[in-house]
């Protein structure tokens, strides 16, 4: 099944499944290859990349919340040139399109990143991550700068605040789709240090906010919307599609339960099958455990022996 998840045109992004990870969830490459079948995902969204290197944030970076977490990493990365050098061949080998997430630090950096990524065959699409406090005019300029400097589709990831105006602005600027929305910012007290930490909030409680936003945007703009925020089940993902999203991005649920994104991809990609009677858990939850795999092999071996014995000589 093919899904066109950006606006139609000379360069649009067509994926096999409308499910992908949010930027940064699978890192820069294949760290989750043993846990997730990447072939089932529609696209791979890279960890955030900036034009110049960024260092990790100081102090506490993770605060566990009742149902979620607050994370403040500082978006560390070695800069686009080093990232491309390190991961180009890996991204070329991935079985799905690669979406390069660019941190919109400044107009000039967005322009340079887009120009740099345009020359890379390993990158299929750009996703521009806009700041939380960005003005619609600036957002329009950022996306326009990216669009002018690449032939590849450009996605705009917008924050939840002022989303309607921002979405209209980036649509006017030529964005291929809007990713709604970036995880909201929050402050929480670290149980370890006792200090307040500022960061992005993740968890299932984000979903109602993001869902409402996607529904609003789907009626306000005429470019595709990729829903993101708090998806923690197949039904959550279907809710976003019902609300008007063309595709979804799954965030931190992957860290807690890696297989979940694969299940959602199967579900939304039209790959849901009925579980066979007597199917072993491994067949349904691939990679779950050695015990099940061995039992399955033993069962196959027994079946082969039986059929050999039953073969007339």
């Amino acid at each position: 099944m093919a899904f066109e998840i950006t606006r139609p045109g000379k360069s649009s992004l067509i994926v096999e499944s409308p499910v992908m990870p949010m930027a940064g969830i699978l890192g820069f490459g294949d760290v989750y290859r043993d846990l997730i079948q990447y072939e089932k995902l529609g696209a791979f969204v890279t960890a955030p990349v900036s034009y110049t290197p960024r260092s990790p944030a100081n102090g506490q970076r993770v605060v566990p919340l009742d149902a979620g977490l607050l994370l403040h990493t500082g978006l560390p990365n070695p800069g686009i040139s080093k990232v491309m050098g390190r991961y180009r061949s890996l991204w070329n080998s991935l079985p799905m399109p690669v979406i390069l997430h660019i941190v919109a630090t400044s107009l000039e950096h967005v322009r340079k990143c887009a120009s740099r990524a345009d020359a890379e065959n390993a990158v299929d699409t750009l996703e521009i991550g806009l700041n939380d406090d960005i003005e619609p005019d600036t957002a329009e300029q950022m996306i326009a700068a990216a669009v002018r400097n690449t032939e590849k589709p450009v996605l705009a990831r917008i924050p939840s605040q002022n989303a309607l105006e921002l979405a209209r602005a980036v649509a006017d600027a030529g964005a291929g789709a809007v990713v709604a929305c970036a995880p909201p910012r929050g402050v929480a007290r670290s149980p370890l240090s006792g200090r307040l930490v500022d960061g992005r909030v993740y968890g299932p409680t984000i979903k109602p906010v993001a869902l409402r936003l996607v529904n609003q945007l789907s009626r306000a703009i005429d470019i595709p919307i990729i829903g993101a925020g708090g998806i923690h089940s197949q039904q959550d993902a279907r809710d976003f599609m019902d609300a008007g999203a063309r595709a979804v991005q799954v965030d931190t649920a992957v860290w807690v339960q890696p297989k979940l994104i694969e299940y959602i991809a199967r579900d939304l990609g039209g790959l849901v099958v009925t579980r066979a009677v007597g199917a072993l858990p491994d067949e349904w939850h691939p990679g779950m455990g050695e015990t099940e795999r061995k039992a399955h092999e033993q069962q196959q071996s027994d079946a082969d022996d039986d059929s050999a014995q039953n073969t007339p000589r």
Partner: protein
Amino acid sequence: MKEIRAIIERITRLNEHYQWLHLAVDAFHADIRAGQSLLARRLPERWDPYLREQWWPVATLNQMLIVERSGAEVYEPGEIVSLMGFVGQPFRYKRTLRNVLLIADNTPPSPFIMAIQTLLANRIAVTLVLSGSAANYPTAHLPPEVEVVVADDHLNWSNRVMTVGWADQVFATVAGDDEMGRMNAIWRIFSESRAEVPANYLFGVFQPLLPCGAGACAGCMLPLKQGETALVCMEGPAIDLSTVALPAPY
């Protein structure tokens, strides 16, 4: 990294503060080595608590993995848990290692318990320093060959200069309230006690909260000297402190 379901076969209570869980696991996970850990999640699936917990193995026996947990947590034999691992790399020792110093500063020495068995089996002398709240850790279950030293809250103990002098390699773990600041304090103790702190001598055993444990989230990224970085979940938990860009003293 793999994800499996493990069964809690047995629970051994060390004292009112700590307990050991005996987990039936597959052959892969039973092959865990000292320094490596697992990310655990209790079943049935719920989103509260959200993050997986880091579980440190203390021993393996046949297909059984024993982990150390707080005595305040309630587990039942037969309970199933989801385990992801391995997180991190095994501890790397010097070839010429004869004496090793392990320091736990205001945190249980759980990351070291499995290493102690390996070290003693290789006839390496082990000294374990318990500082601050770590002094409450029960040591009766440790092999008698281990020298246990109790230090005060400021990492002072008798014969500290001598202990630091004879150690061929040092591993230190600290409380998570200010992990970098506490590591810096340990670095200062050794740099003041020795003419120089060579490479591959003093290792910080970092235990930050790990959202992913797989190298994706950057939540455990350490700044190194010369602008480099290291992921504790991939390259740690033991990182050579001579390479870490430690902050100003706290």
